[in-house]
């Protein structure tokens, strides 16, 4: 996909049906979620997912900057997805490029689909996503981190928002693409699921799939999201576990 004319395409699927890192087609990379990873943000989360490291922070609801974006009937969600210059093999020029701006837009729209924005008119909920180390699937890791950070900030939501990409690599549908599968695979389909309603609030696709493959990929992605959902809930439970009362404390 992204590598027209490139050579040295690796073998993405072994004859035994195992992937480049030994995973089965429907297996997620290891994922670790830490809720409340930053001291100064109203809410935050750190996600290590395969070789991705993504930090998200939430500020707000607070005053809207710039002021003209203010809405009288609801909060605005302003999202900035940013990749660090050192997060990829070849140094990325710092600053907002078009890809980052598009991703910021679709993530903000996905989050606004689950946050009770009408509870906070004339305010802004600012969501910052920093990709520190990237290995495919950073927008999904960013949504997972942002969603846990929103919960950590105590912002009321319909549900958490697990996300994952399904792709086609070596001719087979695979869950949770890693870099080589993304670069040399045939399709990439990131999605974010509202587990309670079973609906998707983020959905993008690039590559080629038949309608039958696409239909199967949607089922795989939903199943993957449900696994990630459990990890997200566990991370929040861990953060807010009530400690057994220590001596002398009330």
């Amino acid at each position: 996909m992204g590598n027209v004319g490139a050579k040295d395409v690796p073998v993405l699927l072994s004859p035994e049906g195992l992937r480049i890192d030994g995973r089965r087609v429907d297996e997620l990379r290891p994922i670790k979620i830490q809720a409340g990873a930053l001291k100064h943000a109203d809410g935050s989360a750190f996600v290590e997912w395969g070789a991705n490291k993504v930090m998200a922070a939430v500020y707000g609801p607070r005053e809207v900057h710039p002021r003209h974006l203010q809405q009288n009937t609801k909060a605005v969600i302003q999202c900035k997805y940013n990749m660090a210059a050192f997060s990829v093999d070849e140094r990325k020029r710092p600053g907002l490029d078009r890809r980052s701006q598009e991703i910021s837009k679709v993530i903000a729209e996905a989050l606004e689909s689950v946050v009770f924005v009408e509870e906070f008119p004339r305010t802004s909920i600012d969501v910052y996503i920093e990709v520190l180390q990237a290995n495919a699937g950073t927008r999904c890791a960013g949504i997972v981190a942002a969603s846990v950070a929103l919960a950590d900030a105590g912002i009321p939501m319909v549900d958490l928002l697990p996300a994952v990409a399904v792709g086609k690599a070596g001719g087979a549908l695979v869950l949770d693409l890693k870099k080589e599968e993304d670069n040399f695979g045939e399709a990439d389909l990131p999605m974010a699921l509202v587990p309670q309603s079973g609906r998707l609030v983020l959905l993008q696709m690039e590559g080629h799939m038949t309608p039958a493959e696409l239909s199967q990929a949607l089922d795989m992605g939903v199943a993957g999201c449900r696994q990630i959902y459990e990890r997200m809930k566990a991370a929040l439970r861990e953060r807010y576990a009530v400690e057994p009362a220590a001596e002398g404390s009330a």
Partner: protein
Amino acid sequence: MSEEVTAEILTTHILDLASSGKRLDGRGPDDYRPTVVEPGFVATADGSALARIGDTVVVGGIKLEPGKPFPDTPNAGVLTTNAELVPLSSPTFEPGPPQPGAIEVSRVVDRAIRAAETIDLTRLCVTPGEKTWVCYVDLHVIDHGGNLIDTALLAALGALTHATVPAKRFGIAEADYPLEILHYPVECTFVRLGDSIVVDPTFDEERAAQGRLTVATDEAGRVVAMQKGLVGAFSPDDVRTVVDRAFRHGDRLRALARGGGG
């Protein structure tokens, strides 16, 4: 009455109509507005087309210039797509750097052209690692009546289909030759209005929409790109239905872009 209040009233009206299966302009849920592609609209471009869906108008122009390939793809040409929502097209656009909406249009159109392998980029290469054709696809939205993505890709595809590689002008070959097109992607955009999902939204329908879903298909029966936008949600079954509906519109739109008449 402020713009905000009229928009609010109109939104309520559009959603009320949708609940009884109707649309403001009388269309059914699967009807496109009248769609026209006029190739060769701009003589100074190497390929061009004006695409019109209802009162949305996009002019697409192709320019091909020699340049350097990217270091990681020495054998491939370069393709860049850029959409401009120029201020003359809508009271809501202001001059300045591209807004997220314009960037999204560019990227979703670019994704469809690229993923469908519309042009074989390796054929644009002149000398590997050194010289290649750079293909610029510039899209100007000149009247914004909603559904920019579908209109922009029609303009882009119409322009590419009729493009000429200016090889003689740049001294690369004896004569100019037509740009070879391998696949014909088109995008179909749907929005959710309450419980119904309708194709080809107008500006006001987009403002009332509870989610937008674009599906790009090609003539080989493949889905090549998708984009969910705006605030809102779709179930996996909604997505499957929308993909089927996109295929039903695909061939007619492709024929328009290729100049095969309506």
